């Protein structure tokens, strides 16, 4: 009877787990990997194991020393075998905890915040579902600098009247996450452009544009509270554009809410304008559930010019990914304020609506469809009276429908078509467009890709037909990409019988990757229409900041 009880107790104790702690004095591990020099042993926790400690195996009922710990992580030890001790993968290994360490508190397998070394946290409710990672505060607070600087030039010139345009652009984006491993981060996105034109220009014509889209300090007050100060575009309310001021967001579980207060950039030069006060609130919720996710944001914003309301509107944005096949996006703006001839009212006006859906039923086929409707945006205080009248008189909503289908015919041949239609109730600004292409990748013998595409467009006054052929390939171990193309374009006026000559385009472009941080590209194009020759040359160099 005693033997039976002992047997049951031992059997139960042994059956706890294949690695774990069967008593206060012993830890069980399992050999997870072996190579010529080392044996890797996994434990539930290696807190009580030190480098240089010995690990034992059970042979013939007794413990024999077999491995010496050379290095360790929170749950794994790298060991070297002793005296050619033979041990196989998945074999059990035992560590005898020294008496001095026996009183050390065992780490709980579900402990999160306090145990910074716990790598795996088992979700108690849904063990088969997603696994939360370790407390990532240490990872997130590590300083990280990323960015990109680009210098580019676009040049267009013609032999007709020696007309030309040169546009020089410099662009900088920089993100410094967790400055000095703190909770403070910095982001900026700047753009400078200078245009050099050959034609005579009217007085006041601008040729230089310096724009700051983002320049803000972000502070993580806590895991759920963030504050930003400076100029920043909030991705949850993207159509608002840049906000000069303070933005804060508070998250709790799947809900979030935020407030913005500050100023709107000047409507003429995008600089700071302290007269254009704006403030608002937004809220929403998001959820990630396996492959599905969705996020909805609703906000209200008041924009002022001085003490008068310029614009007041509600904003809604929704992103939905049902699974890895279907995703949707929609946004709308609803004006809640009108002020015509001094008569202010809360009359609503839908100024913008956008909806898109992406569907990929199988890997070979992808479909995208979208609809948009836009009206003039009116700032009742910033715009002059007659300008407001003109905008309201031309207050039709311009709409667009687009559908794009891409299909992979074979492993190397893929094709697609795109249909789009822009229209408005009075028939103006019409554009019906058809675009189709077929591409053969990895051409035999010569390599590279060959693309044939056509575009047909019909507007109220012009029909255009384009046919193009493009070849591109990577060379020098994909560091250099070269492409060349030919296009032929035929324009025809709808209601006028004017003989036009065809327009021919021929061009090439080169892209070069110099290491991980530098990219260069050069594009040149010649177009010929009768006696008219036009040239385009684009050049850019990009440096990654890491």
């Amino acid at each position, binding site marked *: 009877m005693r033997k039976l009880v002992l047997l049951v107790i031992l*059997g139960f104790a*042994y*059956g706890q787990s*294949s690695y774990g702690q069967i008593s206060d004095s012993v830890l069980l591990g*399992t050999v997870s990997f072996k190579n010529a020099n*080392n044996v890797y042993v996994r434990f539930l926790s290696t807190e009580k194991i030190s480098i240089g400690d010995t690990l034992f195996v059970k042979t013939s009922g007794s413990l024999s020393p077999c491995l010496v710990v050379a290095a360790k*992580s929170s749950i794994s030890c790298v060991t070297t075998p002793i005296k050619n001790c033979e041990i196989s993968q998945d074999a059990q290994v035992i560590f005898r905890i020294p008496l001095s360490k026996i009183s050390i508190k065992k780490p709980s397998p579900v402990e999160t915040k306090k145990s910074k070394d716990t790598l*795996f946290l*088992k979700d108690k409710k849904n063990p088969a579902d997603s*696994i939360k*990672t370790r407390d990532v505060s240490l990872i997130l607070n590590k300083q990280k600098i990323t960015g990109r600087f*680009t210098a580019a030039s676009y040049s267009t010139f*013609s032999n007709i009247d020696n*007309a030309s*345009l040169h546009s020089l652009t410099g662009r900088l984006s920089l993100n410094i996450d967790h400055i000095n491993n703190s909770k403070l981060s910095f982001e900026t*996105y700047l753009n400078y452009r200078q245009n050099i*034109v050959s*034609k005579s220009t009217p007085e006041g014509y601008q040729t230089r544009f310096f*724009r700051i*889209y*983002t320049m803000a300090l972000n502070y993580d007050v806590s895991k759920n509270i963030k504050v930003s100060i400076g100029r920043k575009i909030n991705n949850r309310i993207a159509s608002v*554009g*840049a906000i000069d001021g303070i933005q804060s967001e508070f998250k709790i579980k799947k809900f979030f809410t935020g407030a913005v207060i500050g100023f709107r950039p000047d*409507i*003429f030069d*995008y600089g700071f304008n302290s007269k254009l006060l704006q403030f608002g609130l937004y809220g929403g919720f998001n959820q*990630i559930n*396996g*492959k599905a996710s969705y996020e909805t944001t609703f906000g209200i914003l008041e924009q002022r010019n001085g003490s008068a309301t310029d614009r007041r509107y509600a904003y809604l944005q929704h992103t939905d990914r049902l699974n890895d096949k279907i995703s949707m*996006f929609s*946004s709308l703006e609803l004006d809640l304020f009108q002020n015509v001839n001094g008569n202010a009212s809360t009359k609503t006006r839908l100024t913008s609506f956008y909806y898109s859906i992406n569907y990929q039923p199988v890997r070979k086929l992808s479909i995208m469809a*979208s609809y948009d409707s836009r*009206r003039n945006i009116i700032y009742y205080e910033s715009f002059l009276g007659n300008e407001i009248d003109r905008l309201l008189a031309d207050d039709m909503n*311009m709409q667009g429908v687009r559908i794009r289908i891409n299909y992979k015919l074979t492993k190397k041949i893929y094709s697609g078509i795109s249909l789009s239609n*822009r229209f408005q109730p009075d028939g*103006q*600004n*019409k*554009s019906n*467009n058809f*675009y189709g292409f077929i591409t053969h990748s990895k051409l035999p013998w010569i390599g590279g890709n060959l693309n044939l595409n056509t*575009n047909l*467009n019909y*507007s109220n*006054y*012009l029909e*255009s037909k*384009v046919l193009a052929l493009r070849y591109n390939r990577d060379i020098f171990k994909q560091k250099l990409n070269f492409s060349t193309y030919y*296009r032929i*374009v035929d324009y025809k006026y709808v209601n*006028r019988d*004017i003989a*036009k000559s065809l327009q021919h385009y021929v061009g090439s472009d080169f*892209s070069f990757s110099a290491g991980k*941080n530098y990219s260069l*590209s050069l*594009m040149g194009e010649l177009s010929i*229409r009768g006696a008219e020759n036009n040239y385009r040359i684009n050049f*850019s160099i990009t440096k*990654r900041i890491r």
Partner: protein
Amino acid sequence: MSVQAYCQNTHGQNFKVDCRACHNPGGWKIDMNKFTYNHDSTGFMLEGQHKKTDCKSCHKSLVFNEAKNTCAECHTDVHGMSVGNDCARCHTAKSWLVDNIPELHEQNGFPLAGAHKVLACVDCHKSETTLKWDRIGNECVTCHLNDYNKSTQPNHIQSGFSTNCVECHEPISNDWGSPNFHYFFQLTLGHAIKDCKACHKTNDYKATSPECISCHLNDYNNAPNHKASSFSIICTDCHNTEPGWVATNFKNHDGLYFPINSGKHNNTWNRCTDCHPTNNYKEFTCTNCHNNQSKLAKEHDEENDYRFDSNACYKCHPKGEAD
């Protein structure tokens, strides 16, 4: 009995990729030289700049399928939602800079051709951000309303011209006054006049008739014998737009008087004065061309009424034929 411990994967429970595709026994740090995992299998191909991006920029946690895979989730929308969220319409992973701007404009029904090809973006897209594509459509008057309002040669408003600029102007030409500008009445040859007022006597340009006689009535009245001979007021019966009023044709001459556009006399004359030597077009001469008197006399030696006289010629040969 033994109970197998619960094995947990840092990268998510459904992560089935072999560890060796990314990791190696040297340590957890990824050695890109030994990295064999094909990211294309996720459906998000690492092309262009995405190929150089650090993994952690997109994978904020070790559970890889939590990474965002739409543009807007990682990239700030500097266009302020003015063009939706379909970034691939204009951009590629190669660079945010766009090289095929003319092609994109063609797909939107406004080709950057003619005078529009050397315009800066901001010349049309006037948003203060320079990157917000507010609705401007593709009708000329949207941008050229000021040009319409300010034009004085002629004054478009007073003349009641349509705001459909294409009625007179060509969007893909290089200037306002293209050769086909006055396509409904060709301003060539005798009509190559720069001064619109020469024909358009009032500000109502549409009221100007394209009929020749509406401008050339005085010329008709003052022309020799036009009125007296009841010549047609359809000037093109005899004249073209060459300067000088040289009569090059008289379409009804055959039926009314004498065949000169058919029969023996077709292509035998250059101008009316070949047969009508004076301003009195009732007078004519055959003997100007048929001037070999002795030969003619011999040919007519059996004709009793023969006389070397134009009227006599016409009396016997009204159709210009020998018989």
